[in-house]
């Protein structure tokens, strides 16, 4: 069953390469996405099929990430169909193929229980998503792709070194070194401490680069800023979740081997540092897509903070993965629409989005309110749970700093978002005559509304199966078998 998850999307990617017509090809995306989500729901309902081989096991963490990314991919693919219909001036052969390949590799990441295989899958996602950034074929997007590739590959190489260190730490007296998660977890107390800590740091820096934690976040504003909104959504929702899943494996091993205290101090520092850097760079940001990138850096910081706090905040952290992925996707898609309509990303030319794009503009504003943790929406529940965890763990200073950074980020983001959405479009905007005529089509607006409904639902009432999935993921993370 695991192989189906991996090879079905790659098969569809090949099919996409084969389809000649530029107009029909985008429709393969929604078809593949719906089948993939159907398979995910089917596999979640059938626990017996969730163990294909010692290498490919779908544990509770994998299930959550698989569900989140596949749902996000479904919404994005519907948006992609509408978006590519509008962008017919460029061939989207490579675009669709890479998207579907990413879906397959994400499946591999979710299923793999061998850290080496996990590394290969993550490296492959990096390489597959590189052409996606380059879709606009402008000088700036080449530069963004180059930086993404360079910094990403350096990070991933460090992660490989970390994986080798981890394997080496399991090479105790006469025991065979192995990278299988079960064996590492069962033999965890016997791992040699020095190598394990070095491995944890290397993997933190390596997968941190993939997630976009500060100070390794420098590629993120360029990559998210220059790629189309759709790709930003896939990145912010999907790629970061996969990298976070990979890091969760490492955290599990670390916690199992009794290095919890060392790990949490490091994670708290990285989390707060990322939120601070995000807040710093978001104040006075002129380009609303780069602002969304920094908001993604901030949310990676919040995830790390949640992990650092430890057991009481794990439920909130995992819930935050789901809610922030959905809200991020919503924000990026609506930002993409606004960018298309105004043909510019800087707040000097963009204004009054609510008037020109009623659905995208108002949902962009609602998304902003959601991502900064206002109550009726999903991220509020998860951030509040993390805050409660921080208090329960007795870390008052961390909680205080957490709230302070949330406020700084809110002010920075609010200034840009309000300039974009409210008011009248500034005079500098192209007069309606050569206005790009881009309006909220059904395909480009429906996914945003659906995502908004999902975020609102998560805020008001978390459905029982999802709640169950998250709580046993938290238990699994806290005390693995």
């Amino acid at each position, binding site marked *: 069953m695991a192989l189906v998850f991996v090879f079905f999307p790659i098969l569809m990617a090949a099919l996409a390469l084969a389809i000649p017509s530029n107009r029909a090809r985008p429709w393969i995306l929604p078809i593949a996405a719906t089948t993939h989500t159907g398979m995910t729901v089917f596999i979640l309902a059938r626990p017996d099929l969730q163990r294909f081989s010692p290498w490919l096991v779908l544990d509770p963490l994998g299930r959550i990430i698989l569900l989140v990314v596949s749902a996000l991919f479904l919404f994005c693919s519907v948006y992609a169909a509408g978006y590519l219909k509008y962008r017919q001036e460029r061939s989207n052969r490579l675009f669709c193929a890479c998207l579907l390949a990413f879906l397959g590799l994400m499946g591999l990441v979710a299923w793999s229980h061998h850290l080496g*295989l996990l590394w290969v899958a993550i490296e492959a996602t990096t*390489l597959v998503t590189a052409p996606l950034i380059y879709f606009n074929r402008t000088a*700036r997007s*080449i530069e963004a792709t180059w930086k993404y590739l360079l910094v990403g590959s350096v990070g991933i190489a460090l992660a490989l070194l970390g994986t080798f260190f981890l394997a080496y730490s399991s090479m105790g007296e006469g025991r065979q070194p192995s990278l299988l998660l079960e064996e590492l977890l069962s033999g965890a107390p016997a791992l040699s401490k020095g190598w394990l800590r070095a491995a944890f740091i290397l993997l933190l820096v390596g997968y941190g680069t993939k997630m976009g934690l500060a100070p390794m976040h420098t590629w993120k504003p360029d990559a998210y800023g220059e790629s189309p909104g759709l790709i930003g959504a896939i990145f912010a929702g999907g790629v970061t979740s996969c990298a976070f899943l990979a890091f969760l494996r490492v955290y599990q091993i670390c916690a199992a081997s009794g290095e919890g205290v060392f790990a949490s101090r490091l994670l708290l520092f990285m989390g707060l540092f990322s939120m601070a850097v995000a807040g710093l760079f978001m104040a006075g940001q002129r380009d609303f897509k780069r602002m969304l990138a920094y908001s993604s850096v901030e949310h990676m910081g919040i995830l790390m903070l949640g992990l650092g706090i430890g057991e009481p905040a794990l439920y909130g952290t995992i819930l935050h993965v789901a809610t922030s992925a959905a809200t991020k996707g919503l924000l990026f898609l609506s930002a993409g629409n606004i960018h298309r309509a105004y043909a510019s990303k800087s707040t000097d030319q963009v204004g009054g989005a609510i008037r020109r794009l009623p659905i995208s503009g108002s949902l962009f504003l609602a998304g902003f309110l959601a991502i900064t943790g206002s109550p009726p929406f999903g991220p509020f529940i998860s951030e509040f749970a993390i805050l409660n965890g921080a208090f329960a763990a007795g870390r008052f200073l961390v909680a205080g700093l957490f709230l302070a950074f949330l406020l700084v980020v809110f002010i920075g983001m609010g200034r840009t978002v309000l300039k974009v959405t409210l008011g009248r479009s500034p005079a500098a905007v192209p007069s309606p005559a050569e206005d790009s005529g881009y309006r909220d089509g059904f395909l480009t607006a429906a996914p945003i509304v659906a995502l908004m409904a999902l975020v609102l639902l998560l805020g008001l009432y978390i459905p029982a199966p999802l709640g169950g999935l998250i709580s046993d993921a938290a238990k699994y993370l806290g005390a693995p078998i």
Partner: protein
Amino acid sequence: MLDLLNAVLVVVLVLNLFALGTSRILAVIRIVAVQGALLGALPLLMHDRLTLPVAAAAVAAVGLKGIAVPSIMMRALRDAQIKREVEPLIGLLPSIVLGALATGLALLVSGQLQLSDSRTSTLIVPASISTALVGFLLLTTRYTAINQAVGYLVLENGIFIFGMLLVEAIPLVVEMGILLDLLVGVFVIAIIANHINRAFSSMDTRRLVSLKE
């Protein structure tokens, strides 16, 4: 067997310093190709008995690192018709000195690390750390896009050396995956370098600074 391994590793270290020292890009690529081939052959020396998977892995590593990757780089270089000079951020001599310093630091550090079993009394750990550091050095001090790719390759080789210690832990599939990823990675980097050259009419990454705060 052990001293042959050490000899190969010493050659790898020397090649590192050469890579730092040459001023022409073609030469750097050839040096890295030789280094890759040597590393590919390393597992044959490590194992006392020759099993099929180990041999296959070695052949693939030599083939890939020694021949495939350098040829991609050469082709990217030829298309770009750029002048073959390497303009490093800091001159050639200081980079060699820094390289030597890195190797010394690696030796010092690996002395401190408590290595678990006898087989690793050889030079593997210091060699891998120093190659990784040299890779970083190349990445951060060279401006041309291809040169940065070469730096990434050297970093990859460094990590590959460390992989030698854990031959049993990494099954063949994963080995192949890593090599495949390396190949595709270099391939994509080469294409992007090509596009940079067409867009900016030069391989110099100093022109890639328009995206900033």
